[in-house]
């Protein structure tokens, strides 16, 4: 610590992280002539961040705990690869004081604040105490860990509901639960403890008053070893789902110059109070004109690109300069905020299915040509999205003269993306960016919860039918193009036609039946039994151009497995084609409850022989740091429990078998 003010060269930088942030750091390091060393867990062996680094060190193992969270192996990797500095990125060990200390002890430059500063802010509870002392406004709280149920209920009663359960050691919404009444309390605390333990290695949680419709505004601070502590303005991160930021922007539409000045002053004071150096973020809750200190993140933030966009600075570069002991190239007040930047976080998850993480191979992944869009991503086409790590695929950042333009352009960039193979929150992001409340700047942390219509698919039901025509006809083109015999004979030709050719597609829980026939009079088309005028202009398995009821459409189609991905100006629709014939194992599947995603069984709640009712929790899975209950699909008796707690399961693996047929089974008619 004492020697950090003296210049220390950085020539070989180990990036103790993965995904997009590892790529991001590599990019700047390379620009600065610094060699980069990646580390990677087994599931990441083909990830682009590994290939892009100068050299990479495998961390044999898959789970975060034995790879990206293992301090000993990380320091060993640095030694092995001859690193002289370590950048921790965000998440994983980024706010782990012991890791920062271990780096210092190993003679490595830690690109971040001193261990003491991390420690000071590491415990949210401790941090609040410190901040109160520094004159920064804070919200009262109660520590929950170690309390008995009775004590919990008593403590909660004193604070009053609604309450927020928060992990003392963490961020990113992990371990966080809103509790609206006493009955939910114990379960929420225990669940929060488990998630916190898994995500941060520390299960401590606390209770804090939950401010309804609060806004999340944070201030970026930067401090060098020469006493210069600056702020780089605010970012607003109010649009969240389940306490996870999804859209961030700078400047905040609610912050006026006066508020900006007060918040920035509080943030700088906070940084000074703990002898902070390097990049940090002071998070505040803004509520009814007041703001309260929430926590300080002693690292680079996921959303740092919006600050980069409005300030024109490269924050990673600044981090490396500061770590080398250099002075910040500016003083307070010299940096300006230009235009408006918005970032959206694209996650592999299914908003329609309760934001269940979505895993699988990213079959296609491509961006629309929208100018002024920065994409920070960790994936490429062919990438396997696994359940091991955070499901964020990419961040898209737009910088535009006005907030309105930025929102429109970002929405266009997102809706034009081709993301095939996993479900994403893309439609939700676009809907938020186009929502009148968002556009009016009236955002708060409950925006998404308050507007369930935001979860609806971007492509409306009417347009979806147009897309379905493209999917059905592309399928037809593909089948004809790959026919083994009679390939040149007109498609579906009949000398005696009794019916149309049928395709049944399903998207967003809706089934669309497309029936068609071609003859010399043209194309006959029926959608769910209703006739439509169709003229095909150009057709191939990947691109369909047609006139439907007088309107010309051009849509891109990609068929993989039983899914047709259709991309067009309105967005993307993933259609699942219903099989013409029920598969034999459908009968076997009745009564078995399977894992919806790959994950870890954290609890099995039933025993063999137990009678269960529909909707009852049978087991709890943990996948991507989220707990997912597996519920009984129907009433019945547990005939077999196929897994036990602690077991890693694959998607579709049977967890529990129930007897008793679900109602309506045995009708194989589709």
């Amino acid at each position, binding site marked *: 610590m004492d020697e950090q003010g003296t210049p220390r060269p950085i020539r070989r930088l180990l990036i103790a992280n993965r995904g997009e942030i590892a790529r991001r750091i590599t990019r700047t390091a390379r620009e600065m002539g610094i060699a980069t060393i990646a580390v990677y867990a087994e599931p990441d062996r083909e990830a682009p961040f590994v290939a892009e680094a100068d050299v990479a060190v495998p961390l044999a193992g898959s789970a975060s705990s034995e790879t990206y969270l293992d301090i000993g192996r990380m320091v060993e990797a640095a030694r092995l690869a001859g690193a002289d500095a370590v950048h921790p990125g965000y998440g994983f060990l980024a706010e782990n004081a012991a890791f920062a200390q271990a780096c210092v002890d190993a003679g490595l430059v830690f690109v971040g604040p001193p261990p003491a500063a991390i420690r000071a802010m590491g415990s949210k509870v401790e941090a609040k105490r410190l901040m109160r002392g520094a004159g920064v406004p804070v919200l009262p709280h109660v520590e929950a860990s170690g309390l008995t149920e009775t004590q919990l209920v008593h403590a909660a009663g004193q604070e009053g509901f609604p309450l927020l359960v928060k992990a003392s050691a963490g961020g990113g919404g992990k371990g966080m639960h809103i509790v609206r009444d006493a009955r939910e309390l114990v379960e929420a605390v225990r669940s929060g403890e488990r998630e916190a333990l898994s995500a941060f290695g520390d299960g401590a949680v606390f209770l804090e008053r939950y401010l309804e419709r609060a806004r999340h505004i944070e201030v970026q601070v930067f401090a060098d070893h020469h006493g210069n502590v600056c702020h780089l303005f605010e970012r607003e991160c109010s649009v969240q789902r389940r306490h996870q930021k999804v859209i961030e922007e700078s400047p905040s539409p609610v912050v006026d110059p006066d508020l900006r000045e007060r918040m920035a002053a509080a943030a700088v004071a906070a940084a000074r109070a703990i002898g902070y150096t390097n990049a940090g973020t002071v998070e505040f809750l803004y509520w009814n004109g007041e703001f309260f200190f929430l926590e300080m993140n002693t690292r680079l933030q996921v959303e740092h690109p919006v600050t980069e966009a409005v300030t024109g600075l490269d924050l990673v570069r600044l981090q490396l300069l500061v770590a080398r002991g250099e002075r910040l190239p500016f003083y307070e007040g010299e940096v300006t905020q230009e235009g408006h930047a918005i970032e959206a976080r694209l996650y592999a998850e299914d908003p329609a299915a309760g934001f269940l993480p979505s895993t699988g191979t990213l079959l296609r992944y491509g961006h629309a040509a929208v100018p002024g869009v920065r994409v920070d991503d960790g994936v490429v086409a062919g990438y396997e999205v696994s359940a091991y790590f955070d499901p964020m695929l990419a961040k898209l950042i737009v910088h535009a003269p006005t907030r309105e333009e930025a929102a429109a352009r970002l929405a266009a960039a997102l809706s034009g993306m081709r993301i095939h193979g996993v479900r994403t929150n893309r439609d939700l992001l676009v809907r938020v960016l186009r929502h009148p409340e968002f556009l009016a700047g009236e955002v708060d942390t409950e925006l998404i919860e308050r507007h369930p219509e935001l979860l609806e698919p971007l492509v409306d039901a009417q347009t979806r039918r147009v897309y379905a025509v493209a999917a059905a006809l592309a399928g037809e083109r593909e089948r004809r193009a790959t026919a083994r015999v009679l390939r040149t*004979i007109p498609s579906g*030709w009949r000398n005696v036609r009794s019916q149309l*050719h049928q395709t049944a597609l399903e998207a967003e829980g809706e089934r669309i039946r497309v029936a068609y026939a071609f003859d010399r009079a043209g194309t006959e088309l029926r959608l769910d039994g209703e006739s439509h005028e169709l003229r095909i202009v150009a057709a191939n398995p990947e691109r369909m151009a047609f006139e439907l009821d007088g309107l010309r459409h051009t849509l891109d189609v990609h068929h993989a497995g039983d899914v047709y991905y259709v991309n067009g100006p309105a967005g993307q629709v993933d259609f699942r084609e219903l099989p013409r*014939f029920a598969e034999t194992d459908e009968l076997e599947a009745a009564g078995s409850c399977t894992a919806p995603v790959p994950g870890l069984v954290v609890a099995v709640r039933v025993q063999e022989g137990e009678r269960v009712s529909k909707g009852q929790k049978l087991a709890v899975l943990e996948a991507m740091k989220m707990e997912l209950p597996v519920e009984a699909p129907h009433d019945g008796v547990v005939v077999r429990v196929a897994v036990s707690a602690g077991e890693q399961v694959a998607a579709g693996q049977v967890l529990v078998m129930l007897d008793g047929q679900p109602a309506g089974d045995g009708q194989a008619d589709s």
Partner: protein
Amino acid sequence: MSVMSTRLDPRAETYQQNRAATLRLLEQVEAHLRQALGGGGPRYVERHRERGRLLVRERIDLLVDRDSPFLELSPLAAVGTEYHTGAAIVTGIGVVNGVECLISGNDPTVRGGSTNPYTLHKSLRAQEVARRNRLPLINLTESGGADLPTQAQIFVPGGATFKNLTQLSAAGIPTITLVFGSSTAGGAYVPGMSDYSVMVKNQARVFLGGPPLVKMAIGEDADEEELGGAEMHSRISGVSDHFARDERDAIRIGRAIVGHLNWRKLGPSPSMPADEPRYDPAELLGVPSADPRQPFDVREIIARVVDGSRFEEFKPLYGQQLVTGWASIHGYPVGVIGNNGILFSEESEKAAQFIQLCNLHDTSIVFLQNITGYMVGTKAEQGGIVKDGAKMINAVSNSTVPHFTVMVGVSYGAGNYGMAGRAYDPRFVFTWPNHRIAVMGGKQLAGVMSIIQRVAAQARGETIDEEKEAAARRALEEQIESEAGALYATARLWDDGIIDPRDTRTVLGIAISAAHNNIVQGARHYGVFRM
């Protein structure tokens, strides 16, 4: 190969008249097809559906590969007879899991799918198509058995059905039977004689004798399901290889079976560009003359059927009433022989030579029949028309490359034989709706009869009642004409179906591709050519 030119003028009055006439005939054909599609009528179709069953064409549409073509054979069998149009059975060529198969399915809405003489004829023809072209045979069985009042016409020839099944199997042509309903008495041998049998749960009934017969014969009270149900045959008797949960499941299994046949076509794959003809096939409607006595140029048909309208004519200056040459259809090289009039000695010799060349090159032959016969008269006879006609018939009879005959006009006299008529076993015969067929035209035939009768009367010293004679002559002419039409021919399976002229290229494409499942090899030996 050069692109053909055309002289057809779609604005010409004759073209318009021809087109209108063909369309009128097609409307009649359409009306009959609608009747065939209606099966046993709305009441029986409704009843069938109420039992949760699929119609025969729905079964076929599910069985064949999606968007693949299906060529129904003889859809108008029995039209104009006392039996239902279509003869209670649907047969055709369809693609199952990438394999061209002969599919034969009972229509259970027509008198329970029972077999009448036309049904038998059509089903035996389907087996024949499977055997000649080496197509796996898939039966979709649901039949009440023999139509008992007509048993006399069925029982004895019908026995061939089972013999054919096992002979197909012996020849390495797979036979698959999916049983959707009754398949009793002799019908039980259909699944029994097949390589593979699949039975639908609670629907299949496969037994030699049903409960009433069992009661009568041995006094046993038998339960239908125990006597011949799908589950019994799948678990106990072994008559069924696969127990299907429902009809769709049976079809799924049938597709899976074809999928594992490891099928290889023995004939060569298409080897030429399969581009569409340069000239619009829709113009074929205006080519055949509305008046059968008016000739038309068969080249106008060839130009609208073959790939890219490319045709290399052989011996164009010799025997000009017959057009011969090389072309390709959907990429398959073919020799084409078409009539442009009467067959003289030159035409006959040209045909005999061309057929031998096709055999030498293992090339299939398409015959386009519009033939009023071999030339008669002293000059022709002295020129050896019998000898030369014999050469042509010798060549066509002993030719072993696949023959495909399209009746694009008239077919009178021995010209029918020389041009690979039905009796000469072409792989397929398809008919245009304007087709006329008889030993000779009705007028000529009645005239010939009249002359013969006059000569006989004179010999007997009788006088002719001119009025009576004229009436008899008219009646005979009418009878001959009514028996010479395309519908009359197709009802009796003289062909494999009437086709829309515009579909000729498609139908031939399917037929040739089907034929290429078997070896395509020309003859090296013929009968003695009389020189």
